[in-house]
């Protein structure tokens, strides 16, 4: 099998890949500057940063999972679950009685639940040997169901300035979630490139058997990747809720798994595993968001945008497969 010879490659090849992405980004920006009305405005930048942050955060988690040779379809459902829990907590009697504690719990508890979801995914895959796509399919469908059961399918609206800061706050004039995504990227980049855990992560994706035989903690590393991915999805879910000041379990994170996979692949993650380009994922997320924005701003319907996204995914994976040969 070709997977067995797929050793993590030196840093030069991902750079070529990144340049391809950068070229695509440049073309998109140029096109927009020339065609899209009001593109070169600060407001456009803000809108795009606040939108791209959620995709980027989830895409980074997805990149880690893909680096182990897996995939996580449950990210959107986990976003919905975390997003449904937060308002439930700070709108509860406890949350109203102790506002500060309530908001703190509204951050911590949903992320804890998200982590458990990741643990569930990871354990299914590492201990039972279930294929990642099937294992994560379980939460993909029932996670959103649980969120809807919790909220009874209702839209939860609220006004809670301290919670909404996550989605509407600004630091140095730029949206808070943009900085958050950047901070997460830096931490993950350090983790992947500078720690033993990062080395094992790539080793597991490159050749799982070899990693196991050389004494690597394969199972723990794999589970870790799914847990991190789930926590990041949870954060993204909270951000979406904070932006909207409302939580809609049916729509929060809907089809996010596609955006995240597309962003990770466009950013240079190899579906066979063994490569974890964290900043590539951000680049991929920016490209995906810009494509969406370009279509939307030029009056293309949402439905056609779906088809465009499908084409981007196919094209990106196809280019990847060709380069491998």
């Amino acid at each position, binding site marked *: 099998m070709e997977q067995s010879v797929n050793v993590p490659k030196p840093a030069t090849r991902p750079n070529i890949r990144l340049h391809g992405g950068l070229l695509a980004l440049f073309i998109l920006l140029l096109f927009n500057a020339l065609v899209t009305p009001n593109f070169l405005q600060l407001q456009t930048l803000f809108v795009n940063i606040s939108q791209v942050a959620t995709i980027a955060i989830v895409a980074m988690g997805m990149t880690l999972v893909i680096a182990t040779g897996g995939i996580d379809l449950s990210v959107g459902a986990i976003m919905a679950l975390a997003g449904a829990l937060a308002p439930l907590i700070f709108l509860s009697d406890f949350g109203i009685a102790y506002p500060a504690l309530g908001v703190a719990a509204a951050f911590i508890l949903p992320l804890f639940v998200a982590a458990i979801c990741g643990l569930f995914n990871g354990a299914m895959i590492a201990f039972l*040997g279930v294929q990642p796509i099937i294992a994560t399919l379980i939460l993909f469908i029932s996670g959103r169901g649980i969120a*809807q059961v919790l909220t009874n*399918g209702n839209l939860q609206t609220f006004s809670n300035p301290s919670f909404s800061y996550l989605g509407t706050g600004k630091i140095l004039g730029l949206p808070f979630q943009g900085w958050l995504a950047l901070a997460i990227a830096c931490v993950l980049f350090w983790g992947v490139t500078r720690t033993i855990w990062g080395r094992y992560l790539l080793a597991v994706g490159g050749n799982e058997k070899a990693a196991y035989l050389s004494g690597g903690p394969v199972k723990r590393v794999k589970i870790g990747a799914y847990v991190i991915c789930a926590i990041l999805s949870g954060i993204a879910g909270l951000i979406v809720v904070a932006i909207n000041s409302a939580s809609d379990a049916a729509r929060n994170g809907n089809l996010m798994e596609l955006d995240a*996979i597309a962003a990770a692949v466009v950013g240079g993650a190899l*579906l066979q595993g063994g490569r974890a380009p964290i900043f590539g994922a951000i680049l991929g997320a920016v490209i995906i968001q810009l494509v969406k924005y370009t279509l939307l701003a030029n009056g293309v319907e949402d*439905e056609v945008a*779906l088809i465009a996204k499908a084409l981007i*995914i196919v094209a990106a994976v*196809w280019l990847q497969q060709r380069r491998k040969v």
Partner: protein
Amino acid sequence: MLNEDAFDLRRYIQRNSASATVWAVLVLLISFGLMRYENFGSAYNITSFLNYNAMFIAISLGMCFVIMTGGIDLSVGSVAAFTSVIAAYLSPYGIQIALPGAIIAGCAFGALNAFFIIVMKIPPFIATLATMLGAKGGALVISGAQTISVDWSSNFTKLGMEKAAGILPWTIVIVIILAVALWIVLECTSIGRTVLAIGGSEDASALMGLKVNRAKAFVYILSGGCAGLAGLFLASGFGAGQPLEGIGWELSAIAAVVVGGTLLTGGMGSVPATVAGALLLGLVFNILNFENGRGTISFSAYWQMVIRGGFLFVVILFQAQIMSRQKQVRS
């Protein structure tokens, strides 16, 4: 005259002992339902149950073949939504045009999947995920994001609402014919055996000179065609082409296939057990509806998804156990 290669019923049953459980559970659930609810065995409940589940059995049959090759088809739900719109548009011309039209539209998406997977060498789940998006977008574009009501004056709605000879719904008659045909294809034709061989080991099958690509193209086009048929049933049974339907259908189909004892890694599977798996899943919801009706429990529609996921989880646990036992036997 005994021929070793000939079809042997006893060996067939032995080989499929893993899927025998699903039949046992099915019988158990049916007898439970019959004893507990007085209308459970009524002609109305049976025919409406079969009629509603015909579309799920159809997509499960297609999915079964895809999974047997070790692949997956996530696009079935969107494709069914797309073809339901096509069928609604074709309904004025009658079922004789709408039936082939919907199936051809479904097969076209299957062919697209096959092209992505075989020619472009894109992993099945990415390829079919993209098709899922494309079909969904396509369905919304051609329908203008509206449900398209069918023409009631033609014979189109007869398919989904009337019964053959006054006994069985037409949809289930078609599904039975489909299932028997596919059973024969799987057990008795070279393409069927190639499907199983690919799931066992694609490389070995190719080296043995089996027509791997032909069989793979067959399963994806078949799955698309089955989804097309399901879309037709949807439009005909509910009187409208519904571009927003089909969400989560791929999961139901995968669950039905897995419940039927087909290994997710491919190489093993059974057509009748898949039908039983689909019926079993449908029956769980039928029984839940009856429980809701009695007022002992009250489940909102949102529970369906949770239960479906939970069901899949339990089945996967069983499968993981079977697989690890098989590994022990082999080594």
